[in-house]
């Protein structure tokens, strides 16, 4: 489904600040795979997301979705296939527009944006039904401006919007990191349900070790722009946080350093 072939990306090439962001990344996701990504600060996790979504283009290497090379395409053209939830709850929604208008923009993914009415009666019914599934009462506030919602509500809406049209690939970039524990748990649960129901091929970056082990069917660990560990489902089921940290130290020769890391 998603195929990265020898993807490399350098930041500030030729300057004293030159930094390897990604080096020779090979990653292949089968349809329905749910892969969690962990790693220390500057390991290249976010760059990996950006290279897939098209915010950045790889210096060398290929990104393919369903066999089609998409790395030459700009971000807006790739988003036909890729849904994305950002870490910042403010990033995934338009604050000055209403909930139903935001959903209408998500609904238009992959379609031509013409002069048809963005929100009509039948779409509104659909939006209401889908919002109901979130279970946080947003279906009663269709006309409320998104800027008035709490961070957790906005992130739940972002998740619904990103998955609304069942994208081929779902990218979750630490999408629970900015929320308090209760809200983060709600979003995690919703993520699990939506991914399972829609059978979405998902790549999720997280700082939460316990979450990285509990969710998904595969876990990869990154360090200095490389994938240093790739744990399949069979091993992941019995993995503990202590083992995972031990593995990191053994391979990279240093402790997993991240000021925000959560052990679970």
């Amino acid at each position: 489904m998603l195929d990265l072939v020898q993807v490399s990306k350098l930041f500030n090439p030729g300057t004293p600040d030159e930094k390897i962001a990604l080096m020779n990344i090979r990653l292949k996701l089968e349809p329905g795979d749910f892969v969690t990504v962990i790693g220390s600060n500057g390991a290249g996790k976010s760059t990996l997301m950006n290279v897939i979504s098209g915010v950045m283009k790889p210096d060398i290497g290929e990104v393919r979705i369903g066999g089609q090379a998409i790395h030459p395409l700009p971000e807006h053209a790739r988003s036909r296939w890729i849904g994305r939830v950002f870490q910042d709850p403010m990033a995934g929604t338009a604050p000055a527009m209403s909930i139903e208008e935001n959903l209408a923009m998500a609904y238009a993914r992959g379609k031509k944006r013409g002069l048809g009415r963005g929100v009509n009666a039948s779409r509104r019914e659909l939006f209401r039904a889908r919002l109901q599934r979130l279970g946080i009462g947003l279906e009663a506030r269709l006309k409320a401006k998104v800027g008035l919602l709490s961070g957790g509500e906005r992130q739940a809406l972002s998740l619904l919007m990103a998955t609304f049209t069942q994208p081929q690939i779902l990218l979750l970039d630490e999408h629970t990191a900015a929320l308090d524990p209760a809200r983060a748990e709600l979003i995690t649960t919703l993520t699990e349900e939506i991914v399972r129901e829609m059978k979405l091929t998902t790549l999720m970056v997280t700082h939460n070790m316990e979450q990285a082990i509990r969710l998904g069917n595969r876990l990869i660990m990154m360090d200095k722009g490389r994938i240093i560990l790739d744990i399949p489902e069979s091993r992941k089921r019995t993995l503990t946080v202590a083992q995972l940290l031990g593995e990191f130290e053994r391979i990279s020769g240093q402790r997993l350093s991240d000021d925000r890391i959560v052990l679970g």
Partner: protein
Amino acid sequence: MLESMVGAVELGLLYALMALGVYITFRILDFPDLTVDGSFTTGGAVAAIMITHGSSPLLATICAFLCGLAAGACTGLLHAKGKINGLLAGILMMITLYSINLRIMGKPNVSLLNTDTVLSAIADNEWAYVPVLLALALAVKLALDWFLHTDAGMALRATGDNARMIRSFGANTDTTKIIGVSLSNGLVALSGALIAQDSGFADISAGVGTIVLGLASVIIGEAIFGSRNVFRATLAALLGAVAYRIIYSLALRVELLDASDLKMMTALIVVAALVVPTLRRSMKQKALARKRTQELAGASSNRGGRS
């Protein structure tokens, strides 16, 4: 007095189209576009030259609108594709348009006196003029409202609100910016064309200060009529333009002021309108923070006392 008021309302309704244009760039795209100083003149120039050369006033007005669209598209291209800072892109286009406008007119002033214009059919009828102009302004406002609620229009609004988000849903924000700036300048040129026909001449300096005038209209409108949603915000821009012309004609009556002082007065209105809400918000925020902290501090000391 009454006559000058009616005149102010008439002019305000014609300027309302320009204010709606400025609303698109300034409020929706968050991009103060200086092109309007040039495209307003372009509208008047195109209409005046076509009419004096014998083409139908309606066709001339439509062409003025199209020329405005083209001018705006150039600014949008400079900004979105050329990655030129928005203000600078506007300034460059404004300067370019000065030369182009002179080329169009051939001389700094073209008279339209004693020629038929789109407005001359109703201009003689005192009672019909204001209602017709009001209907025209409302029609443009409603058309804009409709557009801003279509899928394309919502992508335009989201571009100013959260560009990263709408890109992640597949909209090309370069294209939406170009469309927005283009549409804005189309409306400004349309307004310029109508005002040239209303006043009976097109002048090379007609557009000087259009951006400030447009900002003043939008801001005054929002202050008086509010901007809770698109419908209200466009209504505010429309009525703000009228309110501005009324204020302008009242200010002309003040002995102390010369007509030439009014550009400065307009700028001062805009400055005040931009600064005051920011100051008020920060003062409110501080007061609220102090109050809440005191409440929380009080609550915790009470609890401490009980235990």
